[in-house]
């Protein structure tokens, strides 16, 4: 039995601690906002925050997340109004939306560490988050909006 601290709550988990955190979040804790895309760390859909850093939850064993502060899309802001969530809506960023929990978590971590990122920095940091619908221009636009207010 281990305890995972997710979105400010303690969750007990009595299963295999070597299972990727992604599946514990989704299947054991019911936090389905975090998405499975590839399971290989190639697409970024499963991005969550571990102690504030954006991490691919498919590549982290649940046991290795014990003692860390885990934040998922459901816990990014108590009312869903984190700056990144707001600009995402303002810029109508998503289409199908499947990858956007990961996109938003990645962007939120970027802005937390670099509130005024250059365009190159935005493109570099976000390049690991793939979007099937091709919303890349609006993703960059929204992050610019968040960092400059324009």
């Amino acid at each position, binding site marked *: 039995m281990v305890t995972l601290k997710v979105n400010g709550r303690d969750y007990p988990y009595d299963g295999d601690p070597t299972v990727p955190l992604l599946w514990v979040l989704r*299947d054991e804790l*019911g936090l*389905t906002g975090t*998405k499975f895309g590839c399971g290989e760390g190639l697409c970024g859909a499963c991005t969550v925050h571990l102690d504030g850093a954006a991490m691919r939850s498919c590549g982290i064993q649940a046991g290795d997340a014990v003692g860390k502060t885990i934040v998922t899309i459901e816990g990014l802001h108590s009312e869903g109004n984190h700056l990144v969530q707001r600009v995402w809506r303002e810029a109508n960023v998503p289409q*199908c*939306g499947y990858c956007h929990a990961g996109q938003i978590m990645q962007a939120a971590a970027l802005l937390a560490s670099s509130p005024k990122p250059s365009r190159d920095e935005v493109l570099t940091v976000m390049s690991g988050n793939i*979007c099937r619908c091709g919303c890349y221009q609006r993703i960059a636009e929204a992050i610019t909006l968040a960092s400059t207010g324009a």
Partner: protein
Amino acid sequence: MTHMFDPDPIPTGTIVNVSRRLLLKGIVASGTLVLGASLRPSSAMADWATGAGAMPGGTVNDPHVYISIDPSGLVTIITNRSEMGTGVRTSLPMVVADELEADWSHVRVQQAPGDEKKYGNQDTDGSRSVRHFIQPMRQCGAAMRMMLEQAAARRWGVDPSEVKADNHVIVHVASGRKAGYGELAAAAAALPVPPVSGLKLKDPSQFRYIGKGTISIVDLHDITVGRAPYGIDARIPGVKFAVVARPPVVGGKLVTFDASEAMKVPGVEKVVEVKGWPWPSKFMPVGGVAVVARNTGSAIKGRDKLKIVWDDGPNATYDSVSFRKEMEDTAGNPGTVVRNDGDALAALKTAAKVISAQAGGISGAISAHSSSVRSLS
């Protein structure tokens, strides 16, 4: 508020007011106007043939659309198509709302369950949902708008031609009297539905939403907070998670398997053979060996421990390298000219610089295929 669907088939090519029938059956809240339309575009109802009638099942399973208005004025519009990122879950109800002269901020979109007898063809593919359904959706919205206008005209003792719908309100132009959609819903429900031949569709210049680019997708907020439900997020009480080891060669099949090591993986509960469809399976499952576990991660670990003997079947010798070469060789052959505007070939001969490139690749996507099954045994 109760949202219900017409339990009885509606003859093709008619619009009927179903609310009284449903009221009698006690499944619609009093004062709720429900409109059901059976709209087969190939019938006399359509102004043009859209092709929807030729869809599989389309000529038997008529498209239906349903609008309900509750006494508060909340308009609920059913969408019969699945969202896959094109925004169709928003755009078709938006078309209804436009013809209805509904205020989008008082519109709620409700997903139809999979039931082609009730909702018509629900095959959301081919980039044709709007093309196939814009006409029936417009007719449905327009019919309800006219019923609301007639209800208001009756209330005020004026001719329907003197009133008009304007953004969720019916206005008597001469006197300035107004009545909201919610307060008119019950009276409108008691009126006969105008025949399609009498429907007045909007002139495109009157469109409020269509083509304006001002409406955000209905799922926008839910997507940004992780609450938009995708197929893979469906949860059934007592749910288990399974992954399937499938034949490594298309058209191959299972010979035998040994699950003993897989069953030792923590969290794995069962290993079962899944019968597939015979080749060519087309859209049907190809079968394999399913590992059932308490979570997907454990199921994947279990799958990796399976010992399986496959019969690779007729494609065992397929070689993707030689197939690619074959494609490239074929691409080098002269093609059939379908269209040659301005004589591109002549222009290429005299061009200062010619850039030549060969494009090719495999279309792939980030798509998490999943299905949820309720087992009764």
